[in-house]
């Protein structure tokens, strides 16, 4: 599995990562090598095996519908890079 320059750009965009043009060849190489490594998975004879998403075969626990969290807005906003009037601010969102 060899990734093209444009593949790396597409993945980086999907992952919202700024990668400069001169960094791309290095990523191209290392990502291709990793994909070659994980490509060995296709040699495994999985037959009818069910996929395993979790190490333990346990069901989800259900929480009682109780309001347990108090307002901590000021504490949380204190660590925000940019906030005003109780809101987190971001560059204009265009719908």
């Amino acid at each position, binding site marked *: 599995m060899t990734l093209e320059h444009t593949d790396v750009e597409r993945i980086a965009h999907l992952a919202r990562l700024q990668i400069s043009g001169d960094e791309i060849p290095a990523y191209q190489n290392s990502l291709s090598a990793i994909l070659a490594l994980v490509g060995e998975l296709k040699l495994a004879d999985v037959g009818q095996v069910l996929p395993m998403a979790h190490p333990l075969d346990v069901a989800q626990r259900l*929480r009682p519908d109780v309001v347990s969290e108090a307002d*901590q807005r000021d504490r*949380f906003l204190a660590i925000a890079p940019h906030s005003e009037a109780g*809101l987190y601010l*971001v560059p*204009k*969102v265009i719908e």
Partner: protein
Amino acid sequence: MEWQAVIGLEIHAQLATRSKIFSGAATAYGAAPNTQACAVDLGLPGVLPVLNGEAVRMAVKFGLAIDAQITPRSVFARKNYFYPDLPKGYQISQYELPIVAHGSMEIELEDGTTKTIGIVRAHLEEDAGKSLHEDFHGLTGIDLNRAGTPLIEIVSGPEMHSAKEAVAYMKKIHALVRYLDICDGNMQEGSFRCDANVSVRPLGQEKLGTRAEIKNLNSFRFIERAINHEIARQIELIEGGGKVVQETRLYDAERDETRSMRSKEEAFDYRYFPDPDLLPVELDDKYIEWVRKSLPELPVAKRQRFIDQYGLTSRDATILTASRELADYFERVAKAPGSDAKLAANWVSGELLGALNREARELDQSPVTATMLGGLIARIVDNTISGKIAKEVFAAMWDGEGDCDAIINARGLKQITDSGSIEALIDGILAKNPQQLADYRAGKDKLFGFFVGQVMKASKGQANPAQLNDLLKKKLDS
């Protein structure tokens, strides 16, 4: 060429839980921004989701009410995309294994026939926050109070062919979630909203046309208008030699048009995968039976009961069971002391709904309560007033003049049932109209109605109509 529209709806109903689907923060509407967004809702590093059992119970209630399959082992998945109102960069939803699948809902069409709309699935997911576009120095403000509010997304098949059908379906779902008490149905606050997938195809063609998804539909009126607009746009586009592109369009109520959403221009690759922070939700028969026992009387059953118990017509029963609130209102009116069920049905579906419609009010904003209306009907039944006078009393109650007895007294509307008084009025009218009296006696029977009208007018409408008839007949024929 004749075209057929194909419409599928994705309805989002916020579940009326006290706390969020994956955190213990409150879900109340209208709190100050970000005061109901806890560490989990904010997606702080290290936090984890824990599923609210009540959200599961409500989704199962809905599934049972639409005769759907309840998935014994459903799975939460992450839908990955970046957006500022989505704190974690993914929405926890359900993908391959939704909690509810293969249900249906019957709707009534305008021509009186019914149609069954398939509900492909209903899955649990978390709501996103809100972007506030007021200008903060050219920036957008993010309020995450809504983030993590539980939703069920109810996905219909592409089985509706007009905006009217779509609205009828949505109204039925709306009524159902309120019957079930799992969603407050408030469309203005966004508790109940929908996206519509719309496409057109030449009539008779099986293959579906390319669809556009219309977002931001939060009133029945907008849905109808937006869908009609979109159907017309697509037909015009194709007939003009163009092609419909698969895209997301936003309905702009002010301009009554849909437009392409710039933010959704790029094709999304959501990279769904099972959420490793959550385990499969396993529901056994015992659990499902436990939920089934908690189901209230559903619209179909209630409608039949109204026909059987109160002798209502099928039409009235349909109207009165359109919402749980209206049905409850009707039953309170019908059961008021001295009231009558058939009269109650006529008054609720006639005067009351007419007045609410005229003033575009919801039932809970009616100035005439069920007790007041029941009292009014009791006065018709016991002959205190006539049906005609009752309409005047109803109007006065609507205008806030008090309850019916107070209005009858204040306005002196009490029916005249004293024979002597009615006879005196009759004598006066006969004396004033000698020619008509002679004509009647000469065989012009039709004039009977003239005399009734004159006497009634003289009584200011208060004469008991039955008594008036009897007494007048006796006088004329004597």
